[in-house]
C-alpha cells in the first residue's frame, strides 16, 4: 500500500485503507489521509465503508485502558534500581580476554543440556539427570583399577616416553588427576 503516489484515491483504495486502519481518518497514514478525506466527501460508497469500520472501532474502544498509578511506576523504578547491582555483578566476574570467559565448563554444558531437555521434554530431562547421576556414582565407587606405576614405551627415534603417575591407582583419580608426561632422551 505504501509504494505509490496518493494524490487521488478511489473506493477500492478507501476499502483497503479502512480494512487496515479502521474508520477514523486520524489513524490513517499521513501520506494518503488528505486525498482519502477528499474522496469521502464526494463518494457515498466510500463514506459507507468508513462508517462500517468506525463501528468496529467503537467496539474496540470499549476495552478499558489500563490504569497506571504513580505508585506503580515508583515501584517499578525503585525495584529496577534495587536490582542494578545484581545485573552489574556478572560483568565484574567476567574479566575480558580470558579464555575461560568464552569456553563453557563441562558442568555448564551439562546444566545447559539438562535445562534444554527439561524445557522441551520434562520427563526426558529428569531421566537424563538420573542417568548422569548414576554414571557419576558408578565411576566414583568403582573398585580400584591398579595401573602399573611406570609404563615405558620405546619411541621411534630412540627416545623413551615415560609416564610418571605413581599415585594413580583408581578410576576417579585417573579422571580427576592431572596427567603428566615426561620425555627423556636416551
Amino acid at each position, binding site marked *: 500500500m505504501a509504494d505509490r503516489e496518493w494524490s487521488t484515491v478511489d473506493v477500492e483504495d478507501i476499502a483497503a485503507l479502512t480494512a487496515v486502519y*479502521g474508520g477514523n481518518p486520524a*489513524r490513517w497514514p499521513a501520506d494518503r489521509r488528505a486525498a482519502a478525506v477528499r474522496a469521502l466527501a464526494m463518494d457515498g460508497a466510500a463514506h459507507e465503508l468508513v462508517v462500517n469500520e468506525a463501528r468496529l472501532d*467503537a467496539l474496540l474502544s*470499549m*476495552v478499558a485502558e489500563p490504569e*497506571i498509578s504513580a505508585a506503580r*511506576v515508583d515501584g517499578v523504578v*525503585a525495584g529496577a534500581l534495587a536490582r*542494578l547491582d545484581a545485573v*552489574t555483578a556478572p560483568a565484574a566476574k567476567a574479566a575480558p580476554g580470558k579464555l575461560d570467559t568464552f569456553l563453557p565448563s563441562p558442568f555448564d554444558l551439562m546444566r545447559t543440556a539438562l535445562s534444554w531437555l527439561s524445557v522441551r521434554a520434562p520427563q526426558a530431562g529428569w531421566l537424563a539427570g538420573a542417568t548422569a547421576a548414576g554414571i557419576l556414582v558408578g565411576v566414583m565407587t568403582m573398585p580400584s583399577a591398579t595401573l602399573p606405576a611406570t609404563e615405558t614405551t620405546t619411541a621411534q627415534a630412540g627416545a623413551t616416553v615415560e609416564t610418571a603417575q605413581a599415585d594413580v591407582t583408581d578410576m576417579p583419580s585417573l579422571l580427576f588427576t592431572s596427567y603428566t608426561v615426561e620425555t627423556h632422551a636416551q
Partner: protein
Amino acid sequence: MDESVQPQPRVGTAAASTAAPYAGNPAGTLTGLGPEPGDDALLARIAQGDRQAFALLAARHAPKAMKLAQRVLGNAADADEVVQEAMLRVWTGAKNWIPDGRARFSTWLHRVVVNLCVDRRRRPAFAGLDGIPEPPDPTPSAVNVMARQQTAKLVSQALAELPERQRLAVTLCYYEERSAADAAQILSLSVSAVESLLARARRALRARLSGVVQDTGEV
C-alpha cells in the same frame, strides 16, 4: 524477535556508587544537563553508570511501557515485572546505544517490552487475582453499565483469541496509537507485513464480534 541492542553488562563506576537512591519521581535535574535532558543524553550518562539518570529515564518511559505490557499480558503484576526487566536491559545495554537521531529510545524500549511479553506469555499461566471477574453490581441502575462491561469483556476476549502477532499489531497501532512504521520497527517486520496483520486482525475481530453486532447494533 531479539532486540537489536544486545545488553552488555558493565562494571560499576564511581558515579554509580555515589548516585543518590531513587525516592519518588526524580526532579529531572542532573549535574551538567538541563532541566529536561533528552533520552540520548540520559543514556550516555547511564552508560557511565549514572543511577540518577537511569531513574529519570525509567520514570519517564515506564508508564507507557507498563500500559503496553498490561495490554499484551492482561495482568498488572506481570506487566510491572516485564517493564522492570526491560529497564534493567536499558541499564546493561546503554553503552551500545548510538544516538544517531534515527532510532527513538521509546521504540527500542517497546521492542524489548514486547519481546519480554511474548516470552512470558509462552510460560505456563498462573491464574492470579486478575483473572477473577469483578462481582456484578446488583442495583437496577447498573444494568446499562453491566451491558457495556459485558460487551467490553467480549471484545477483550476476541482480542485475546487473536494470533499473537495480530494482537500485537492491533495493540501497538490501535491502542498505543503507534504508526505502522513504528509498529514495524518494534515487531521487526516490514510496514506492509504490519498492515497485513492489521487487516487480518480486523477481519477476525469482525467475525468474532458478529453476535455483538446484532445485539448492540454497533457493527
